[in-house]
């Protein structure tokens, strides 16, 4: 039997001389992850990343048979009912998309409450928000691609919301919808957006986000920062935390596989502009709160003014949310600014409440 250890060592030596792997490993070994009662929340960025990788793989696999344009529905039908395991791959893609948005939301709120956006991590916050925004556009554009009834009407409604802003409808029709109605050209350009434009924006932004995490390391929650350095506990990133991360990824992939296998994603009837919208149609859960906000404000302020006010309020909230690192700066004593935490709690509560009300409002 050949001496595998010696061969492996020789290959490693050859690579190390050229790529300086030792330095990278040394960095990974020196890097530490704080251990405290909130360490659990450190896993959510990694979970989001894991689900993104699932999306890349299953997305490429779907693209092998998917045909955008007039044949979109027929090709998704074929993937779902004719290709071996096509239903499973499509289900994985749809479930992972939803779980990824959920994981990103959890990641964002945990970063918020740990005040991990404070100096020097402001860009981590901003790139993260950018990634969340791109995630939502990924979700919105991907939802149309099967061209079944639900995706047709969801896109129709989604695109008409910003249309109430004066002058916006004309631009949306020309640039996004490609006409007065959602049609095969819409699918074609949503496909280009979903598989080319968004990944081109997402991947470099994600790389920068991950680079920042490497550069600054994990942020400590305010209570930990108050402790003297000797009382803080750490574990090495490699191999200790990396292995734990891997274990979490395995759990995530297993949950995903169970969901996809036992609750396969359905394909509705083909989109037909002449058919009335199905009863109980509603946006995906991650758009529900925004949708419900518009509905609630529409009841107080009927007509276009209500819609514009709703969009305006939402925009103001988002701007305040995005600029938090600039006005909630770390104080000298390490004391947390309570108001920022209340703002976060309010946003979380509003998001959850509007989503829940949204589902009740359907009936």
């Amino acid at each position, binding site marked *: 039997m050949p001496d595998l250890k010696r061969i492996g060592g020789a290959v490693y030596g050859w690579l190390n001389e050229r790529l300086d792997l030792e330095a990278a490993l040394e960095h990974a070994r020196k890097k530490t992850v704080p251990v405290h009662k909130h360490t659990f929340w450190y896993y959510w960025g990694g979970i989001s990343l894991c689900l993104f990788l699932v999306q890349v793989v299953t997305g490429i*696999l779907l693209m*092998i048979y998917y045909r955008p344009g007039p044949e979109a529905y027929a090709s998704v039908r074929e993937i779902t009912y*004719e*290709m*071996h*395991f*096509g239903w*499973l*791959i499509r289900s994985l893609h749809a479930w992972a998309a939803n779980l990824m948005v959920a994981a990103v939301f959890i990641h964002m709120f945990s970063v918020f409450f740990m005040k991990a956006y404070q100096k020097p991590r402001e860009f981590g916050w901003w790139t993260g928000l950018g990634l969340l925004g791109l995630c939502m556009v990924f979700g919105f554009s991907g939802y149309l691609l099967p061209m079944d009834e639900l995706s047709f009407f969801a896109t129709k409604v989604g695109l008409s919301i910003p249309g109430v802003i004066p002058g916006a409808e004309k631009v949306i029709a020309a640039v996004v919808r490609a006409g007065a109605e959602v049609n095969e050209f819409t699918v074609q350009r949503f496909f280009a957006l979903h598989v080319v434009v968004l990944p081109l924006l997402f991947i470099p932004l994600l790389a920068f986000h991950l680079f920042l995490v490497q550069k600054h390391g994990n942020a400590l929650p305010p209570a930990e920062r108050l402790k003297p350095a000797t009382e803080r506990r750490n574990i090495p990133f490699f191999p200790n935390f990396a292995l734990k991360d891997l274990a979490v990824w395995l759990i995530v992939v297993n949950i995903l596989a169970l969901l996809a296998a036992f609750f396969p994603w359905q394909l509705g009837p083909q989109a037909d502009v002449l058919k009335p919208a199905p009863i109980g149609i509603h946006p995906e859960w991650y758009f529900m709160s925004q949708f419900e906000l518009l509905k609630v404000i529409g009841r107080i302020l009927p007509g276009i003014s209500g819609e514009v006010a709703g969009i305006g309020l939402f925009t103001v909230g988002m701007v305040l949310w995005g600029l938090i690192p600039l006005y909630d700066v770390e104080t000298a004593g390490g004391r947390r600014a309570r108001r920022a935490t209340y703002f976060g709690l309010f946003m979380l509560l509003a998001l959850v409440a509007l989503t829940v009300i949204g589902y009740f409002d359907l009936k």
Partner: protein
Amino acid sequence: MNKPEQNASRPPVGEVEPLTRRTFVKVGMVAAGAAYATALGYPIYRYLATPAERSAALAAVKELALADADKLPRESALMFKFAGRPAILLHHADDTWTALTAVCTHLGCTVQFDKERKAIYCACHGGVYDAKTGANISGPPPKPLALFKAQVLTGKVVISRA
């Protein structure tokens, strides 16, 4: 980090080492990893293989009727698909008929009927086949083209495996 008592418990050289917990866990991990990789890889392989499996199912076709092919003029050819692969039907000057696969035995290009030479010609590398027997006459083709049985009836030509 070998503790001294662990070293002491090691068997002398030459004896069979008992199964240690470390080895057991290592083998178990590798086996679990391999099982996991198979569970991921198998559906992906089958998914990708679907069209190939379909065309393999098509290849099981034994017989094919070409409607109106009996009206094919003399000294001309008709291209058709048999079991998903290109084939050629020839009506010769002496009113005989030949059906052949149209896939060159050299590198798989689709061949054509050359009226002037009254032969089958492959444009890729200049292979020439006999139009009646499919025998490779000149050029690189290593093997003849396979013959089908062509049965000329009124209103159709029935092609079957020879």
